[in-house]
């Protein structure tokens, strides 16, 4: 229950019960209509699902999942590293450095990843740089996610109490030392949940491998659909969707768990670590 309604009285309870029954019926009707639509178009036929009881097809898709995870891991790792540097640069007192970081982040934020992929596919080769297939996907994704990771790190740094930096200065640390020894360790811990959920975003973006013919899940699905002459299109997209959902949902639950754990572990106000 939330702030929107009180503990319901007898009349409200009756209304809620009626609404519950009506919505369950409406939901059942929708599901029935969907199943009927599948059935009359022959999409429930056993021969259209049988290939997904065979190991070779699953092995193919699981290999593709591995490729997806590899690309996502590399993109998030590189993007995260670049983002960290960008965030530190952006809070720097050097106007040129912070200005550059800001301009980079603002620019990358407004360029679609697809366009970055076209740049890697067409601009770089014309400059004599032809990347291997995996990197044709990883480089644009790392670039496009670096700005988002940068924003997350920056938010973490800005969320710290000013006193932290002042205390570090009072101890005689210079800016670099204060950042490395005092600010970043605390800021990083705070943003871990956001980093994990951003990684989920990168995982979804690996589906752009579709444009570069890198054998991640979505492109492999296209190959599989072609192999079965478009007969298994619906089934393949549903199976692949389920795989994406499982991987990404696990990641987002993990992020939420980290967030809860982080909140409950934060010492109460006025508690000084070391003075237990």
């Amino acid at each position, binding site marked *: 229950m939330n*702030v*929107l309604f009180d503990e319901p009285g007898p009349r409200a309870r009756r209304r809620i019960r009626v609404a519950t029954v009506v919505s369950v019926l409406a939901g059942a009707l929708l599901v029935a209509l969907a199943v009927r639509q599948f059935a009359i178009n022959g999409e429930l036929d056993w021969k259209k699902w049988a290939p997904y009881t065979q190991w070779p097809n699953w092995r193919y898709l699981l290999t593709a999942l591995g490729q997806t995870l590899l690309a996502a891991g590399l993109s998030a790792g590189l993007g995260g590293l670049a983002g960290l540097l960008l965030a530190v640069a952006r809070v720097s007192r050097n106007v040129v450095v912070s200005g550059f970081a800001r301009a980079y982040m603002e620019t990358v934020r407004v360029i679609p990843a697809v366009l970055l992929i076209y740049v890697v596919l067409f601009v770089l080769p014309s400059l004599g740089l032809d990347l291997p297939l995996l990197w044709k996907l990883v480089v644009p994704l790392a670039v496009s996610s670096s700005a988002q990771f940068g924003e997350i790190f920056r938010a973490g740094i800005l969320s710290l109490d000013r006193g932290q930096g002042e205390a570090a200065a009072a101890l005689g640390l210079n800016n670099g030392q204060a950042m490395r020894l005092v600010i970043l360790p605390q800021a990083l811990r705070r943003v871990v949940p956001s980093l994990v959920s951003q990684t989920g975003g990168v995982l979804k973006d690996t589906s752009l491998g579709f444009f570069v013919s890198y054998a991640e899940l979505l492109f492999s699905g296209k190959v599989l659909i072609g192999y079965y002459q478009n007969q298994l299109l619906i089934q393949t997209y549903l199976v692949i969707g389920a795989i994406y959902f499982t991987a990404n949902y696990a990641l987002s639950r993990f992020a939420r768990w980290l967030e809860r754990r982080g909140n409950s572990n934060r010492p109460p106000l006025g508690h000084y670590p070391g003075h237990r």
Partner: protein
Amino acid sequence: MDVLLDNLGTFAEGVATTVELTTLSFLGALAISLVIVTFRVSPVRPLRLFGTAYVEVFQNVPLLLWILFFVFGLPKLGIRFELFTTAVLAVAMYSAAYYAEALRTGINTVAAGQAEAARALGLGFGQSLRWVVLPQALRSVVQPLGNLTVMLLMNTALAAGAGLVELSTAANRVNLVEAEPILIFSGAAVVYALLALLITTATRLLERRLVIHR
């Protein structure tokens, strides 16, 4: 520059498609998200479950997969729309999950006393949501909704995967003929940046007018 001027027609068409796609998807996403967020905060359990499931399912599966499924899958189930309509539908339904989450955060920022006051005036659930809570929730999430709309603009480029000739595809096509990738893709990037600037400016103006000082 000649390359860009010679192909102005193709570019203009691409820009027009991207603008239309963004505008219609935005309106669709806003409408769907209002329904979903109402479901999520309603006292009726099945509706809450449906709202949660909607958000989780759409957020955890890539948009490109939704677009491909809608464009190539739905016709196999006997459901046919025009390509453009299908793309709008996919982008709107996907973005709605994100808009709904932002709105829910907004609802949580509305002070409990506001809802209590609404109830004290005798307003029911629907009335207090419509007249008291949602207007305030919307006003406090103008900025996040603006950011999500910039993301929506970027996401419309994925419609290229289903063969819709929007700005990024238009640029790609021009490049295949002219082979001037640096100029052409920079041109496209500038247009995207300008469109994003338009959205952020509108967001800022709206925010200045609507923000609630607490």
